[in-house]
């Protein structure tokens, strides 16, 4: 009989949402991505592309464009509103109606003082960016068609606007249109349809570059208003353009899923005159590319196939290194599945509803690697639709399976589950404590008597659960003045400790018996992606976004011997090169030396009693160990036992 029975769950129908827009902030190296369901995600490019924040979507907020102004994030949508996001509390800070119909594009000038909006009614609206809000300043001359795209000239004095069949150049001070650049329609059947200028870019030498629905990338002289060059890159639409910071490279995304790079180079070496020449074509998407960002060293693209692709440019990075590899971010970097161990139940979190399933059962025994026959099929017990327009932010299921909770940006809902024979009953707990309003993480205690909810300023609210109701107990506050949200919560099995981690990389441990802060783990510069407390040794295990693993003793308030040994030796290079973060850590009740963890593509058991792998040893050695006879295995085994057979969403 093998060591573990694996329940292979294939009924989690997770469907990601298409990427609609993105904006890269060069100072903080963060990428904001807007999805079709209204969700906004922030990726930290300097910390292994970790998805550090997710602001859940909303039914009516159809985000069309994103824009950074310093560290503030704004979006414009088809609902005609500008939204500023509160990145510390992970929700919209406020919305301002633009009164111009649906907003197609939003862009700020280099100075960060003005926001320009392109609206459906043909106006370019100027909003002043003030300390606490944005305020309408004025409209430019109203045009006859909708304004689909905008680009500021780096000096802030001119704006190029892409419309239907033409591009208009406006003087930003007077608001009058100075030039009209007519864009040719497509050939053949497309001649009868208007050509949409999906994207424009205004360079400092007054060159305007446009991408349109006829598949052309055109280079215009913005001073004289004449067409310089046309590049027909696709038979379908060119949907997005992005220019690098030094304006020597440009990328265009098409409906075919290709990203085409143009570079400003002189045709013959040594000559002064440079022109835009098509250089590379990347085909990393299966569907339309609707959003692009050109960073210093890479091209980031996203579109209808929901994957975020980071393609480093080989002339900017060293070849054949970790830095130069293609990265595809496909799945969310947090856990969407909750498991009630004792009850054998699974809770799946979708943006608009929750599903509660009972695991199937099997019988019989088998050798490792066998598939056992399923005696009882897995069963969907409850499908709970969220109330209101906001999407679900986080959810939790108590270990006994008797309580279920979820939160949105506006409210928290708690439900009591009752099982009698073959029926399941669900009742909503009304009148929750007032403090439970905007919560980012939920966690039940192991005895299901308490619910922990993370709130603003990295604090945690503790509520007690009795039979049918819940009462407020305490708010746990860290000593630091961090305003960042808590993204990880873990309650130890003995009910004594609560560990929290926030996006300032701080990890705090609270003593639940005394209801106060116990200690703070020394801050490590990378984000913690998973935390857990060992049930017997009370050691805290933390895995970070850069794949580092630490073990900290809560009793002694210092790193453990094993952790120091691991740090001294260093982790194996193949382990560090993994590109998805570890999202879950758990332990083996039968063997206290085991730490079980997984990321999206692999499942690993670390055996602390075995020696650590050296830099030169084979990391993924499970297959080779199997082929070696038993007595030999001890010699070759090392602590990291990795299995890559399944895509892993959760493990308990």
């Amino acid at each position: 009989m093998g060591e573990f029975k694996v329940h292979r769950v294939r009924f989690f129908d997770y469907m990601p949402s298409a990427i609609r827009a993105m904006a890269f902030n060069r100072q903080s190296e963060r990428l904001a991505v807007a999805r079709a369901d209204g969700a906004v995600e922030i990726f930290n490019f300097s910390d292994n592309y970790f998805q550090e924040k997710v602001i859940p979507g909303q039914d009516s907020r159809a985000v069309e464009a994103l824009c950074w102004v310093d560290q503030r994030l704004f979006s414009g949508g088809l609902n005609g509103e500008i939204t500023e996001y509160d990145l510390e509390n992970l929700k919209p800070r406020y919305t301002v109606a633009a009164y111009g119909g649906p907003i197609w594009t939003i862009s700020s000038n280099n100075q960060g003082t003005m926001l320009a909006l392109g609206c459906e009614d043909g106006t370019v609206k100027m909003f002043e960016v003030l300390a606490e809000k944005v305020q309408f300043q004025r409209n430019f001359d109203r045009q006859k068609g909708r304004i689909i795209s905008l680009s500021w000239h780096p000096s802030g004095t001119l704006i190029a606007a892409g419309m239907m069949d033409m591009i208009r150049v406006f003087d930003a001070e007077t608001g009058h249109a100075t030039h009209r650049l007519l864009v040719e329609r497509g050939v053949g059947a497309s001649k009868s349809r208007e050509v949409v200028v999906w994207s424009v870019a205004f360079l400092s030498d007054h060159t305007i570059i446009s991408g349109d629905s006829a598949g052309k990338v055109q280079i215009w002289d913005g001073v004289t208003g004449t067409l310089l060059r046309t590049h027909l890159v696709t038979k379908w639409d060119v949907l997005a353009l992005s220019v690098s910071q030094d304006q020597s490279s440009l990328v265009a995304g098409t409906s075919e899923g290709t990203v085409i790079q143009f570079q400003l180079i002189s045709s013959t070496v040594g000559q002064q005159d440079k022109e835009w020449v098509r250089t590379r074509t990347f085909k990393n998407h299966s569907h339309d590319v609707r959003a692009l960002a050109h960073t210093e060293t890479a091209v980031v693209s996203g579109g209808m196939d929901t994957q975020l692709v980071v393609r480093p440019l080989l002339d900017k990075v060293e070849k054949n290194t970790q830095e130069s590899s293609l990265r595809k971010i496909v799945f969310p970097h947090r856990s969407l599945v909750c498991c009630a161990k004792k009850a054998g139940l699974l809770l799946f979190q979708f943006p608009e509803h929750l599903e509660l399933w009972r695991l199937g059962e099997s019988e019989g025994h088998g050798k490792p690697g066998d598939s056992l026959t399923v005696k009882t099929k897995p069963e969907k017990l409850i499908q709970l639709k969220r109330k209101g327009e906001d999407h679900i932010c986080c959810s939790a299921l108590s270990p006994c399976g008797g309580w279920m909770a979820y939160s949105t940006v506006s409210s928290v809902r708690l439900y009591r589950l009752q099982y009698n024979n073959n029926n399941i009953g669900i009742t909503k707990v009304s009148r929750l404590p007032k403090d439970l309003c905007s919560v980012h993480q939920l966690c039940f205690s192991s005895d299901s008597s308490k619910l922990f909810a993370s709130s603003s300023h990295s604090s945690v609210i503790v509520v007690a659960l009795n039979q049918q109701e819940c009462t407020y107990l305490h708010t746990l506050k860290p000593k630091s003045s961090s305003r960042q949200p808590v993204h990880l919560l873990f309650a130890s099995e003995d009910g004594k400790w609560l560990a929290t981690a926030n996006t300032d990389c701080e990890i705090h441990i609270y003593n639940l018996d005394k209801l106060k802060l116990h200690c703070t783990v020394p801050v490590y510069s990378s984000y913690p992606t998973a935390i857990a407390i060992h049930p017997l040794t009370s050691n805290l295990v933390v895995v970070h976004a850069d794949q580092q693993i630490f073990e900290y003793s809560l009793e002694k308030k210092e790193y453990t011997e094993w952790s120091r040994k691991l740090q001294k030796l260093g982790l194996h290079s193949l382990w560090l090169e993994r590109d998805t973060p570890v999202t879950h850590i758990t332990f083996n009740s039968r063997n206290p030396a085991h730490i079980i963890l997984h990321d999206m593509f692999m499942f690993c058991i670390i055996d602390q009693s075995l020696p650590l792998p050296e830099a030169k040893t084979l990391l993924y050695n499970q297959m080779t160990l199997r082929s070696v006879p038993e007595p030999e295995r001890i010699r070759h085994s090392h602590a990291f036992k990795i299995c890559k057979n399944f895509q892993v969403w959760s493990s308990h």
Partner: protein
Amino acid sequence: MAKAKRGNATSSSKMADNSDKQAEKFSLMLDSSDDEAPEEVTFEDSKTQALRSMKQALDTARREKELLKEKRRKRQELFQEQKKRKLLPADVLEEIDPTEGALNNNTDLFDLSPSCFSLKGNYTVATLEERSMASFQQQAAEDFIQSRLYGPGSCRTTSNELLSLQNKKGWNKSAAVQFVKKDWGKFSRINHGY
């Protein structure tokens, strides 16, 4: 062949002889029906004819306009009548007319505030969810994107079709692909709640 109109009366007599001769000359080449000299039309005649035709045209235009007006008036009357017929009979209208302050002693009244009035029979009042201007515009904008990217002329196909064609054209020809639909099976005991 364009008809030649002789405008000058004085030259016409001179031309008459010539034309006769010419006509004789051409008679051998032309058809027999054309051996007569072309008719002579004086200037006055043609002027009066032109004026007459203009007047006729104006008259017909005016007549047509009047006919159209008549038609429209008749149609409007018809609509009014239909509308009248559609409304409830006058006595029912009178009864539920709020300005009259109807307080019929025989009927049951639920609420006696001045803005309320009684409704006879099985009527309920329900407010419709009014979709605001913004959501109509939002829907129109979404339709615009949908039609540009997926509408006619976008040359798109479904992945089902693509894979089916690949199957049929490939080396090992096989049947068309059909994706399994999740709801073909049955789920037992699903509770939907809020």
